């Protein structure tokens, strides 16, 4: 064990892990966050707390993680390099660990032009891979960038994202290898819709031995409606939604569409579980957290291991 992370324990024990996303509120409303947190409590092994996702201003990820932790959750702190330079990122890592957080997901972040602060400066002092290395050097060498020693180094279980569906296709596994080499302990992938391409990505990862070195957790997002499926296909950066899934959503009557979306998600979970090297799933039920227990039950994942 590299850390005190509960997620690391679950994965190391060989359990099929379940994580879910919990986006902080667009303000300081703690009760909204607690409501969402309550829906997921005891249902998942860890909960990802997004960092101003799609560049929309929300409650700080560190603060929201801390609130969720006090509820009994195991938070995964998402950190993007878009908004903070290396001074702020490293400082927040110290603070996050001091607050009891043990997992971090290192990301570059969606470009600021996507969000509600389009005129903002994009920091991008570090890229996600450099952030991964930074967190690892903090943990394993007790040093910050530049080599200064840390008083009480944060020992984080380090995550990274990978998008098997972005281009250039043959570069994706090279980039995954770079992230693992830099220090990623686990990977959470972009939402899997294109199963063929995901399967191919996992095959390539296995071929170069990456599944032995890193836990790969497959991203799952249920469609609420055909509109959402189409929106994700055309408007969300890095998504790959095959036409036949959109057709499935449009092909059922309106009152059955949400049900169909959940059915697709459950089928996807079942398929990714069959793929060798997939260590768990990451459920991103965007503003639909109340459906997480139902999806997990249908997929036979409702009982979380006690570690």
């Amino acid at each position, binding site marked *: 064990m590299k850390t005190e992370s509960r997620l690391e324990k679950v994965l190391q024990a060989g359990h099929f892990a379940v994580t879910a996303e919990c986006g902080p509120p667009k303000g300081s409303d703690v009760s909204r966050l607690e409501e969402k947190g309550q829906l997921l409590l005891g249902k998942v092994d860890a909960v990802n707390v997004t960092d101003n996702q799609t560049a929309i201003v929300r409650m700080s990820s560190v603060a929201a993680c801390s609130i969720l932790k006090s509820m009994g959750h195991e938070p995964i702190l998402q950190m993007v390099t878009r908004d903070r330079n290396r001074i702020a990122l490293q400082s927040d890592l110290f603070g996050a660990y001091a607050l009891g957080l043990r997992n971090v997901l290192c990301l570059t972040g969606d470009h600021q032009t996507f969000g509600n602060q389009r005129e903002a400066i*994009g920091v991008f002092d570090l890229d*996600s891979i450099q952030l991964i290395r930074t967190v690892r050097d903090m943990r394993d060498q007790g040093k910050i960038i530049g080599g200064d020693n840390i008083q009480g180094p944060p020992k984080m279980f380090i995550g990274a994202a990978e998008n098997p569906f972005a281009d*250039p296709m043959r570069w994706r596994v*090279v980039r995954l290898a*770079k992230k693992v080499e830099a220090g990623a302990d686990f990977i959470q992938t972009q939402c899997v819709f294109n199963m063929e391409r995901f399967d191919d990505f996992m095959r390539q990862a296995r071929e170069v031995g990456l599944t032995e070195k890193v836990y790969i957790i497959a991203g799952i997002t249920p469609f609420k409606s055909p509109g959402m499926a189409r929106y994700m296909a055309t408007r969300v950066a890095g998504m790959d939604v095959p036409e036949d899934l959109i057709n499935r959503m449009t092909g059922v009557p309106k009152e059955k569409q949400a049900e169909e979306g959940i059915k697709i998600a459950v089928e996807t979970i079942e398929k990714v579980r069959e793929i060798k090297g997939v260590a768990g799933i990451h459920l991103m039920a965007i503003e639909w957290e109340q459906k997480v227990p139902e999806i997990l039950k249908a997929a036979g994942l409702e009982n979380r291991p006690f570690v």
Partner: protein
Amino acid sequence: MIVAELKQISEIRKMIDRYSSILVVGCDSCVAECASGGNRETMLLAAALRLSYKNDNKYPIITVACLDRQCVDDFIDRIAHQVPEHEVVLSLGCGAGVQALARVYTDKPIIPALDTLFIGETEMRGVWQENCLGCGQCKLGYFGAVCPVTRCSKKLMNGPCGGSKNGRCEVHPDIPCGWDMIIRRLDALGELDRLSEYVPPVDWSTSHSGGPRRVVREDQKP
């Protein structure tokens, strides 16, 4: 070269309406190449201003001059006799030109007529592309002569982000993905191996992050 664009006449007028004599000064270097501040564009701007003022029944004195370079004293001196005869200088130089004129003509208001955009190249007639941010530590040799600092919208040093799709950047479909360009070019050169190595955080202290930069070379001083 420096690429710039002409401001709207309305914005220029907001800055110069208080004066009754205007010296419009072009720059026949970079901004001539990008067709925004050369001799021709300076004449056109003066004509447009005259017309705009005429519509308001105003007739300020508008004189035109054009320097070979607005950022070098030897050239700047050539309008020394005209500057005192006008209340304001409207410069079609880049930001460097405007500030150089202000340094030389200390008692004269110098107003920019252009928005200075970037260091770039003329890709084809009518198309200019940004391709250098002047970071102070050129790494083009490692990236197939495609700059990740400039051509990647997120300045990524270790490969494309998850938003690269069909060779296009997530920011806008009109923007080619810089990393897609890097990979294609290195692949064509048989040098893809250059990309497997981890690139540590960039030292931005040589960029503008280190404060305004200045080069002093004793061997070049008079």
